[in-house]
C-alpha cells in the first residue's frame, strides 16, 4: 500500500551568493520565471519554487507534471523524494522510492553499463543474486546488447535512458519518480515504457512523471496537474490539462507577438517620416 501525500507544502530555497554576485543574481532571477524572489529576515535571499501544494496519490495513480521550465516540476519531484524538504506544510510518504532524475551524473563514465547497473543495484541494497537478476532484466528491456559491456561514456542519451529507466522500473520499489529525462526516448521506447509501467506495477505503485512530450504523458499517466510559478493551476486528465496548457501558451504568445508588432510600428514611425 503506497501513498504519497503533500499537504499545503511550500518550499523555500535560500539563495547563497557572495555580495558582489547578489545584485547580478536578483536581476537574473527577476527575468527568469523562477517563482517569487524574496528576502528572509536573516538577510539571505530565497526563492519559493513551490507554494501551498496539496496532493494525495495512492496505489495506481500515475501523475503527469505539466508546466514550462521553472514552473516547479523538478522541485516538486525532489520534495516528494525528501531531497528537498518543505519550508512549511507536510510531506508524507509511505513506500520505497525509485528515482530517475538525471541521465548519468551518478554513473561512472569509464565503467561498463553492466558494472554501473551492479552499483545501481547495490545502492538499492540488493543481494548478489538479485543484482544479477536486475542486470538480466535491464539487458532485456533496454536492448543494449553488446553495448552493455562498453563504457557508458559511449552511450547516447536514448541508450542511457533505456538503461536507467529499465533499472528504475526493475527495482521492486513502490514509488517511481521520473524527471524531464524521459523526453530523450523515441516513440518505440515510449510504447515499451508504457507496457512495462503497466505490467510491473499494476496494483502496487505510484508513478510521477514530468515531461514536455505530450505523447509520453498521455501514454504513461492517468492524471495530471499543471504548475505555474510554483502553484497548481490546473488538474484533470493528462490530455485535457495538456491541451488547455498549449492553448493558453499560444494565446499569450500571440498577444505578445501582437504587442511587439504594435510596439515595432510605433518605433518605426519617425524613421518613415525621416
Amino acid at each position: 500500500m503506497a501513498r504519497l501525500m503533500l499537504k499545503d507544502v511550500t518550499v523555500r530555497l535560500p539563495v547563497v551568493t557572495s555580495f558582489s554576485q547578489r545584485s547580478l543574481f536578483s536581476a537574473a532571477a527577476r527575468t527568469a520565471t523562477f517563482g517569487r524572489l524574496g528576502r528572509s529576515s536573516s538577510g539571505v535571499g530565497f526563492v519559493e519554487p513551490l507554494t501551498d501544494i496539496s496532493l494525495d496519490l495512492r496505489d495506481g495513480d500515475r501523475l503527469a507534471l505539466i508546466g514550462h521550465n521553472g514552473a516547479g516540476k523538478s522541485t516538486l519531484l525532489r520534495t516528494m523524494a525528501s531531497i528537498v524538504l518543505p519550508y512549511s506544510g507536510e510531506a508524507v510518504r509511505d513506500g520505497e522510492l525509485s528515482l530517475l532524475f538525471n541521465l548519468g551524473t551518478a554513473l561512472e563514465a569509464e565503467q561498463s553499463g553492466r558494472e554501473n547497473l551492479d552499483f545501481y543495484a547495490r545502492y538499492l541494497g540488493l543481494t548478489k543474486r538479485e543484482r544479477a537478476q536486475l542486470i538480466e532484466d535491464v539487458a532485456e528491456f533496454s536492448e543494449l546488447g553488446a553495448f552493455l559491456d562498453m563504457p557508458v561514456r559511449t552511450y547516447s542519451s536514448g541508450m542511457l535512458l533505456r538503461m536507467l529507466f529499465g533499472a528504475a522500473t526493475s527495482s521492486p520499489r513502490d514509488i517511481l519518480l521520473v524527471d524531464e529525462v524521459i523526453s530523450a526516448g523515441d516513440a518505440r521506447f515510449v510504447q515499451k515504457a508504457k507496457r512495462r509501467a503497466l505490467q510491473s506495477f499494476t496494483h502496487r505503485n505510484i508513478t510521477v512523471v514530468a515531461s514536455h512530450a505530450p505523447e509520453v504523458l498521455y501514454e504513461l499517466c492517468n492524471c495530471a496537474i499543471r504548475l505555474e510559478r510554483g502553484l497548481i493551476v490546473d488538474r484533470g486528465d493528462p490530455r485535457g490539462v495538456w491541451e488547455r496548457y498549449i492553448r493558453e501558451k499560444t494565446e499569450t504568445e500571440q498577444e505578445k507577438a501582437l504587442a511587439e508588432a504594435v510596439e515595432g510600428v510605433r518605433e518605426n514611425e519617425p524613421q518613415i517620416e525621416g
Partner: protein
Amino acid sequence: MTPAQIGLRDLVQGVFNIPLAMSLALRELRTRFSRTTLGPLWITVAQALWIAGIAFVFSEVFEQDVGNYLYFLASGLPVWTYISTIMTESPTTFISNKGAMEQFGAPWTVQVWKRLTVSALVFWQHMLIWLAALVLTRPPLSFDMLWAIPGLVILLATAWGVLLLLGVLGARFRDLQPALVAGMNFMFVLTPVFWDPEQLARDRPMVTHLNPFYHFLEIVRAPLLGRTVAPESWAFCIIAMIAIIVLGCVAFARARRNLFNWV
C-alpha cells in the same frame, strides 16, 4: 518528520550501509587508476619518492643517521598525509557527490563512509612504506608499538566526524576548502612531521602542545618510534574526537533541509 529527524535517520541508516560505502570506495579507487599499469600502487610510489627525497636531503641538513631518519619519516609522513587529506578533502564530501545524492534515494551519509574508506585504503598503501622501512632499518621492536592501534582508531573516528562536519560547512561556505588547503601547507611546516621536536633547542608550545595536529600525529607515530604517548595527547585526542563527532551529527541534522540546495 522534521528535517532534523530525517537527518538523524540518515545518520543511522548510513551505518547499515557501510558495506555499500566500502564497495563504492573500491570502485572510486579503481576508476581513479583505470587504464594505468601500476594502478593503486601509484599511491605507494608517490609517497615513497617523497619520503626518499626528504630523507636524502634532510638527513644531511639535520646531521642525522639516514636509517634512523628514514624510519622516523616513514612513521610520520603517512599519518600527516592522512590528516592533511582529510582536512582538505572533507569540504567536498557532499559537493562532489550530488549525483549520487539525488539518484538513488540512499542515505547521504553513505558518502561520508565512502570517503572514510577511501582515505583508510590510501593510508594503508602509504603504511606499506613504513613496513618496508621497518624491514630495512630494523629499529628495536616492542609490544608498546601496538599502542599505535588505539591511536589509529581514534584518528579514523575523528576523521569521520571531520568529514561530516566540514562536509556540511564546506557546502555552505565555499571559502572553506581553499582556506584549508592554504592552512594545511602552513601546518605541514609548523608541525613536527619531517623534523623531530626533540631537536628543538627550547620548548615551543605553538608547534607541539597547542597544535591539535601534533597530538593526532603523536598518538599514532610515537608508539611506532618506540616512544610513549604523552597522557596530554591521549586526553586531547579523545575529547576532540567526541566533540567533533557530536558537532558533525548536529550540523548534519540541522543542515539537512538546505544541504541539497547548497551542493
